[in-house]
Structure formats: structure tokens, C-alpha cells
């Protein structure tokens, strides 16, 4: 028989740790934004994002993509650590024991609460060794100077680190569709670095579906 008392650990039922009205706090007098644990949050104005893009372009030209990707990787590493701490702390279970559905939902809520937009996973190509991450309403896509290829290098870097840490394998990530190019969402293809190598050049002239078709051809 199920005992209700046993279901209540420390008399609590955890809900959404990242509920925005609880998660984000601010102290106007000292001008600080904090999360519910008291960790600092940073509000990034649109002007700053635009300035990062134009400043990097001026200083580093073509290399700005790599710079953004590496910054994303660095940030993604800390993001993963913080996410694990928050989840395991709040739900009282290590991340490894959290069911996939709850994990994904927490990640989605976390993404929203931090103002990154919406995120979802597409596991259609899991058997082929690829994971597709989809995001919507990315400020980094919206404010990027228009290019003829996807522009969310910062997010691609962050997802690289996050999923490499999560899976314990060194993964790479290439963006295959971008809101800045009129796509319905940003798609990021994750997989082993050597398998993703050909995708780097494909993104300049192929759309997401065409890329996936190429990647899933026998022999690749």
C-alpha cells in the first residue's frame, strides 16, 4: 500500500525550481539581479549583444565565430555545473537519477527563466548517433548581423559543453537552421566531432533536412 507520508520528503513536494516569478529576484537599491539561491544573474541588453557582434567582427573578422563558440563552450561548462547543483539540490536526487522527462522539462524551464527562449530535444536521429536540439526566440539569432549561414555560435558552444558533460563523451555541435535566416527555429546538430566535420561546410549551402539526408546516407 502507498503511504502518502512516505511520498513527502521533509514534508515537501518539489515543483518547478525555475518558475520565473520565484526564480528571478532583484534588489533595485543595489541594482542586482539574483536567482532564488542568491547567485548573481546578469541582464544583457540588446545593445550589448549587438556590440559584441560588431566589436568581435571588427577585431577578429572571420574568427569571431570561433571566439563566440569558445566563449559558449566556457559558459556551457559552468552552466552544466550550476544546473546539476540546482537540480540535485532542489529535487534531492543526483542528476543521473532524474528521469529523462523531468530532466528535459527542468532544462526547458531553466532555459526560459534565463531568457534564452525555448528549447527542446529531437531524438529522431538518436539511433544514428545524432541529437538535434531546437531553440526558439534566441536573442543571439535575432540581433546577429545577417549572414548566409547560421549565426548562433555562442549557443552552439554552450550546447557542446553541456551535452559533452552530460553524456561523458566529447561531442561537437553545429547549427543547421537559424531564425536569422527565416527558419522556424534554430536547430543544433550534436554528435561526435569527426562525424560532424562534413556538416561545417554543408551549412553554407544546404538546409537542415538536406543536411540530415546527407548525414544519414549509408557509408557516412
Amino acid at each position, binding site marked *: *500500500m*502507498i*503511504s*502518502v*507520508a512516505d*511520498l*513527502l520528503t521533509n514534508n515537501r*513536494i518539489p*515543483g*518547478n525550481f525555475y*518558475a*520565473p*516569478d*520565484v526564480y528571478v529576484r532583484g534588489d533595485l537599491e543595489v541594482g542586482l539581479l539574483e536567482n532564488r539561491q542568491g547567485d548573481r544573474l546578469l541582464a544583457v541588453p540588446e545593445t550589448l549583444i549587438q556590440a559584441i557582434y560588431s566589436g568581435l567582427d571588427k577585431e577578429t573578422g572571420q574568427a569571431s565565430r570561433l571566439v563566440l563558440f569558445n566563449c559558449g563552450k566556457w559558459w556551457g561548462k559552468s552552466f552544466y555545473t550550476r544546473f546539476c547543483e540546482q537540480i540535485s539540490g532542489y529535487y534531492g536526487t543526483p542528476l543521473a537519477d532524474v528521469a529523462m*522527462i*523531468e530532466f*528535459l*522539462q527542468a532544462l*526547458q*524551464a531553466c532555459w526560459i527563466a534565463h531568457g534564452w527562449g525555448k528549447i*527542446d*530535444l529531437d531524438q529522431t536521429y538518436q539511433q544514428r548517433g545524432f541529437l538535434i536540439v531546437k531553440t526558439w526566440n534566441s536573442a543571439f539569432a535575432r540581433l546577429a548581423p545577417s549572414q548566409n549561414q547560421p549565426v548562433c555560435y555562442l549557443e552552439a558552444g554552450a550546447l557542446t559543453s553541456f551535452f559533452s558533460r552530460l553524456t561523458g563523451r566529447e561531442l561537437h555541435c553545429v547549427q543547421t537552421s537559424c531564425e536569422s535566416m527565416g527558419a522556424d527555429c534554430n536547430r543544433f546538430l550534436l554528435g561526435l566531432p569527426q562525424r560532424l566535420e562534413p556538416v561545417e561546410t554543408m551549412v553554407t549551402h544546404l538546409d537542415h533536412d538536406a543536411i540530415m539526408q546527407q548525414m544519414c546516407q549509408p557509408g557516412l
Partner: protein
Amino acid sequence: MHPQLASIFDQAENRYLKVEELKLISQYVASMPERLDTYRNLRDRELEIMQAVVDQLQAALPEESEENLERCIKHALLMLRYCALSLLINDESLIQKRFLDWVGPLAQAYDTKTIDAKLYRLLNQQLAKMLTAKQMGYLSPGLALAQEALLSQSMNPAGGRR
């Protein structure tokens, strides 16, 4: 706080409140003792109410796995707690923001509608037994909002996401 009350208090910055605005506030204040009683009642008898529901639920669905039942019961406990808080502060938007936005997609992914429907029926019966009609009057709108939202969701057998 109820959005309507909150906006009345904002208005008070520029002018004294009108008779009908004050009436709304007095109604809320007058309902406070009853709201507090309902809240205390739910808090103190949570285990008793839910255990009775759970026993009947398990008897009614003997073939259902404990894991699935426990998940639904936890969600129902959370629902009751948020409904209790919402009746106290007279703000149903809390149920949407804190409860439905979180549990809705989970219920959908785990496809718990059959268990939930049964569970809610038993829970509502139990609550009607344990609370006075007036107390039920404060709790019911929020509870109905939460239950209807969860039961009217379309289910995705593939466990798909929003």
C-alpha cells in the same frame, strides 16, 4: 494578490479609492477568516485526506503500477497545496504559473489522464466530506481550474513534448 485588488492598490497612488473599489477590498478582508480556516484545515488534514483517497485509488486500480500511482499522487499533493495557497491569497494565476506550467507537460508526457481522472473524482469527494460547503466554495474554483486543465490536455502516446 488578486490582480484586480493589486490594480486597485495601484490606483490609490493618485486618488482615494471609490466606493465600489473599497467594497471589493472589504469583501476580500471579510472572507479572510474563512480562507485562513480553510487553509489550516487543508494543511492539518492533508495526510488524512490524501491517504483516504490513495487507499480508494489503489483499490480501484489494482493493476496500475505503484510508480505511476505515486507520480499522480505527488502531482495531486502539489495541486492541493497550490490551490490552498491560491485560495489564501485569492489569486488563481498562481495555479497556472507554478503548477500547471510544470505538471501539465509532465502529465502529458507520462500520459496519466486515466489515473488522474479517477484520482480527482475521489479527491473531490473526500474534500467535500472534510470541508464545509463554504470552504469548498473558496477551494473549488482553483481546484476545478487545475483539474480541468490537466484532464483536457491532448495526450501524445509517443511521450512527445510541447
